[in-house]
């Protein structure tokens, strides 16, 4: 059974490219347009991995991670940030919030899949 990944990004084109890359590698993908939407969808179904942007309207990525980590079902689910932000300060905030990794955009599909496979397996 394919593993499910929740991707959260307010950019439609980015969501499209992430979903394309993940589906091509055999994963099921659930998409959300901002942090709040991501939180709602994460509650509907516990996924195997969350891949989220940082800067989004309504709720940003760090707040989403903090909220997810308060849920019992998301204590151990890997969460990766995929964002344009690249400063050490932001990465430290991400780590403190509970992120398991930080990927700076733009991503290379091959490398993205390698990281995902490393984190949750094929």
């Amino acid at each position: 059974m394919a593993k499910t990944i929740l991707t959260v990004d307010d950019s439609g084109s980015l969501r499209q490219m992430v979903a394309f890359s993940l589906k091509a590698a055999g994963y099921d993908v659930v998409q959300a347009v901002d942090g709040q939407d991501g939180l709602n969808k994460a509650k509907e179904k516990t996924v195997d991995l969350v891949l989220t942007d940082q800067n989004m309207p309504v709720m940003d990525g760090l707040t989403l991670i903090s909220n997810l980590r308060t849920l019992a079902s998301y204590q151990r689910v890997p969460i990766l940030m995929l964002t344009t932000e690249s400063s050490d300060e932001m990465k430290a905030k991400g780590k403190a919030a509970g992120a398991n990794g930080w990927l700076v955009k733009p991503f290379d599909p091959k490398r993205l899949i390698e990281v995902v496979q490393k984190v949750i397996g094929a």
Partner: protein
Amino acid sequence: MKTLPVEELRELLAAVSSHGDWHLLEIETDLQQTAFLLDEAIEKLGNSFMTVYAHLMEQQAAIQLLADAGKLQVEEVAQLQVFQDNIGQEVNKVVTGMQFQDMTNQLLQRTINRVHGLKMLLQELSSHQFPMSADDEKEEIRQFIRQLNQNFDQGSQHLTGSLRKSVSQQDMATGEIDLF
């Protein structure tokens, strides 16, 4: 030496503000139009890319059927594999390149917000809210400019504080990855 009457100065500053406001409005409009065009373009590019890729997959499946049925020479199968690998590499490059709009849109929105903020600041020039009490016109002008400068400074700091730069990428090279 003849000094400029404060009312005349205010009118001149209001005129400067009006000119600046008009140009900033034009810039804001052009930026919004650019953002809209890029948004529509990336949507069309993305959808076309998906369609082309789906057709490619169908084509590869059809070729695979021919290969499995032994209707292709070994050299032809090897050559097709090279084509497939090349296509795969190019697809990866397209996926990376297609992410430009996410970054350009963030930069454009930041610029639009700055232009909007600058328009608000320029309105100070045409406002008439400063008190006029001094008998000495020269002193009044000095006070007027000083107050104006203070308001600009405060407004500028507030604007800068609300416009944190989230995109530092200078090219489309893929970003670094850190696992914690």
